[in-house]
């Protein structure tokens, strides 16, 4: 009744091709942005900002980056955390070594360095495909962490590679409170998500999808294989790099190389699988699920202890949580292999017909 495009006539090409062609979608997105930018900062508290929303946004950005590479261009990668590490440590170096470096510039430099590293580790994709490529990208994961640990210059010769994020400032306004950090993250994520959404429906995005669907056919119709694949790696790594920088500056504050282990790569991969491969919205849904679920489990186990009046040891709880987490992922893959984004699509179809389903 409420959600349908009937009666919304488009009289110009621009109106026909806009990002959200349905009026209700536009209203919903706008409302969401207003809530995120205005309402949440007003009602949120320290814990919510620093422990839940900011990591969720940062990891959404990383998932978005991986989704560009895996979901749109079809190149499976297990090295996401490595590109995030490059972004974080290079942003740190930019701030450290360039006087009067604006923070956004440092993030951009972190992203660009990650993109360069991504291109280098994307080179094997020209020869190898599928799962072989996935395993090959593990090389990035291990090599980058090794390099950060070994090369003192990267972490400014601190012990065991730990860096502390410098003070952030935008146009003289210091960003110290967790709410300000949240707003900065939100701004960057929103802009980059919009850019990704647009990019994926441009020529570049279409050529990515052509390569994903069948690379031989794509090269036959004249899509330059090398340029497109490396571009996919570069864009994806740029997103991951910026996400890594935000991870360090807005979420953790003090980072060691071990924050970016294979575990993080897997978590980001889980996000896009559960959220939906090849969907911008899916990256956000997946990130929300993966970041919120362990917190939720923690609550549950706390309640269980209070309810049953038994003291469970920490090891038992964490093992049980791991089991439930893994089991739930398997369950999700079985019932909805296309992810949460697909559920949302189905809901939209249903809404369109509601309340007269015929």
């Amino acid at each position, binding site marked *: 009744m409420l959600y349908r495009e009937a009666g919304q006539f488009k009289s110009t090409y621009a109106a026909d091709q806009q990002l959200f062609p349905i009026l209700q979608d536009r209203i919903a997105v706008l409302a969401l942005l207003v809530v995120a930018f205005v309402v949440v900062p007003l009602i949120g508290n320290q814990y919510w900002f620093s422990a839940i929303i900011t990591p969720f946004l940062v990891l959404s950005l990383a998932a978005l980056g991986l989704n560009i590479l*895996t979901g749109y261009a079809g190149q499976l990668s297990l090295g996401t955390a490595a590109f995030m590490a490059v972004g974080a440590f290079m942003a740190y170096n930019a701030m450290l070594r360039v006087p009067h470096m604006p923070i956004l510039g440092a993030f951009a430099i972190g992203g660009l360095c990650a993109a360069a590293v991504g291109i280098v580790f994307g080179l094997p994709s020209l020869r*190898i495909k*599928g799962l072989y490529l*996935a*395993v090959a990208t593990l090389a990035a994961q291990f090599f980058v962490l090794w390099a950060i640990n070994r090369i003192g210059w990267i972490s400014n010769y601190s012990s065991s590679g730990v860096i502390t994020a410098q003070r952030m400032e935008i146009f003289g306004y210091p960003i110290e409170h967790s709410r300000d950090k949240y707003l900065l993250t939100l701004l960057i994520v929103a802009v980059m998500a919009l850019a990704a959404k647009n990019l994926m429906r441009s020529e570049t995005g279409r050529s990515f999808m052509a390569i994903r669907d069948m690379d031989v056919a794509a090269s036959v119709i004249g899509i330059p294989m090398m340029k497109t694949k490396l571009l996919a790696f570069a864009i994806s790594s740029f997103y991951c790099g910026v996400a890594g920088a935000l991870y360090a500056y807005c979420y953790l504050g003090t980072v060691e190389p071990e924050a970016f282990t294979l575990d993080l790569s897997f978590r980001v991969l889980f996000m896009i699988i559960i959220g939906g491969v090849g969907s911008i919205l899916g990256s956000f849904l997946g990130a929300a699920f993966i970041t919120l679920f362990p917190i939720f489990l923690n609550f549950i186990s706390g309640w269980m202890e209070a309810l049953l009046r038994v003291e469970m040891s920490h090891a*038992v709880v964490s093992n049980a949580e791991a089991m439930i987490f893994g089991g739930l*992922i*398997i369950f999700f893959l079985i019932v909805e292999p296309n992810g949460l984004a697909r559920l949302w699509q189905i809901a939209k179809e249903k809404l369109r017909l509601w309340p007269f389903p015929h």
Partner: protein
Amino acid sequence: MSFFIEVVAGGLLAGVMYSLVALGFVLIYKASGVFNFAQGSLVFFAALTFVSLTERGWNLWLALGVTLLAMVVVGILIERTVLRPLVNQPPITLLMATIGLTFVLEGASQLMWGSQPHGLELGIPDVPIEWLSQQWNINISQFDLFAAFVAGLLVAVLALFFQKTRIGRALRAVADDHQAALAVGIPLQHIWAIVWAVAGFVALVAGVMWGVRNGVQYALTFTALKALPVLILGGFESIAGAIVGGLIIGAGEKLAEVYLGPFVGGGIESWFAYVIALLFLLVRPEGLFGEKIIDRV
């Protein structure tokens, strides 16, 4: 010169240990096209169960038998509950499912047996063979040699099983072509259950060997990561590839560590194996013994 031989031999024998883990991957990939990331956790699960049983005073062979039984049951359970509902999904989904499985397996094994590290003794000392070190001044561990022997035996048994038995032939048929195998009346799901059971058995062997070497602890799950470069080097579908790949990676890694490591600050074993594998892959994208990829439009 004797030092060089010692390094190479040590590397080759270490490579055999990698091959042991890689074998489990290959078996499952060949038969069902699933890249089973949980193999490392299976190894951990098997080793932990075995060592916990022996520590409770069980007879070695009884413990081995019970663990084997447990592995078979786990393998069949995994096939039933995880992979059967996911038939015909894209490989990435299957890969993710097995990564989810690693959480379940690791959680379950630590929940059952606790998470403290254990030592494992089989009665074969990890000391250099005497006459070799006296005569040629080459130090080769007795246990490494034993592990290599076990790996050889395992491959021989598997080869016999695949070549000579009825089930083995059915397995190879399934590996070649699922649909054709179904058409001639091979029960696909039984075969997959058997493959998972066999992979569980291989995991047990690998787990015991690695357990003696490094102790049974959580780090054992990372053996899977050690086996991955071996896999892409040898090809996902080839048992011979797993062995040869393991030998190349083992020897290459040791040589690089000894002769290259000092120049770049050491610790390169975490990624050097991948570099070796990548170099090979640039020449042969499907691995040394993998099936040739033919692109059709």
